[in-house]
């Protein structure tokens, strides 16, 4: 992806707080009007939930341009080691329509539990790697 003149990179973060076992959280956020294109998406669980990896912690579905595009549907995993060998955004590369919204949902898959089976609240961030007009 090549930046044209007067284009700048901007990250947008959509935070999701999961407070209940099996919770479904609807995503609905208006993006800044100067965003031109979404280049990629990456998901990150913020806090340390337990001592094991959880490959299927939840499920996220992201729609762009007020429900017009559905480019992203992924499982969200938790990794006990916070750092990866490489951080890469999942490629999307879709044009964004100004003043339209990001929609979708996050569904918790009831895996975030302590050794007594009690739910552990957690937060995750959905990062959008975007191009914007200056």
């Amino acid at each position, binding site marked *: *992806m*090549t*930046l044209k003149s007067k284009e*700048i*990179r*901007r*990250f*947008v*973060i959509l*935070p999701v707080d999961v407070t209940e076992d099996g919770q479904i959280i609807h995503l609905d956020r208006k993006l800044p009007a100067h965003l031109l294109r979404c280049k990629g998406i*990456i998901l*990150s669980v*913020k*806090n*340390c939930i337990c001592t094991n990896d959880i490959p299927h912690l939840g499920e996220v579905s992201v729609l762009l341009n007020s429900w017009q595009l559905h480019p992203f549907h992924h499982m969200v995993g938790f990794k006990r*080691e*916070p*750092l*990866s*060998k*490489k*951080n890469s955004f999942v490629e999307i590369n879709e044009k964004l329509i100004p003043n339209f919204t990001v929609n979708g949902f996050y569904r918790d898959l009831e895996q975030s539990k302590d050794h007594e089976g009690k739910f552990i609240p957690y*937060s995750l*961030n959905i*990062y959008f790697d975007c191009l914007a007009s200056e």
Partner: protein
Amino acid sequence: MKLTKYQLIKIKVNTAGETVKFTADTDKLYERIDGMFVSLPKDDSHFGTTLELRIADQEILPEGFETKLLACNQSTSPNERFFHFDHDERIEAKGSHIEGRYTDGGFVAGITFPYQAIIYLKLKNGNENNDTQK
């Protein structure tokens, strides 16, 4: 001609959950910032830790950006740990003013306070098109 410099910014974090505001200036002898990475003494300190960064009044990282996306584990060679800015996204060095806000994630198990967070900036001179590590 001086081509490359790795400039360090050191941030002292005294307590869990602390927010540290910091300022710095890039080396005047270099034209642009090619990339950056964040190094912490313990990988677990990355849980929930965020870095907001502005360089020359330009938003580089928004509020809430997790440091773990700016770091890689020890199996990645040091040269490949850098988060590179887009190939033709020009972030001026030349003594640019840096303003940042580092917020510790509050993870305390096995973490010794105070600790020092280090931000590495990769500064370059010359033509970007000569670079191969993108």
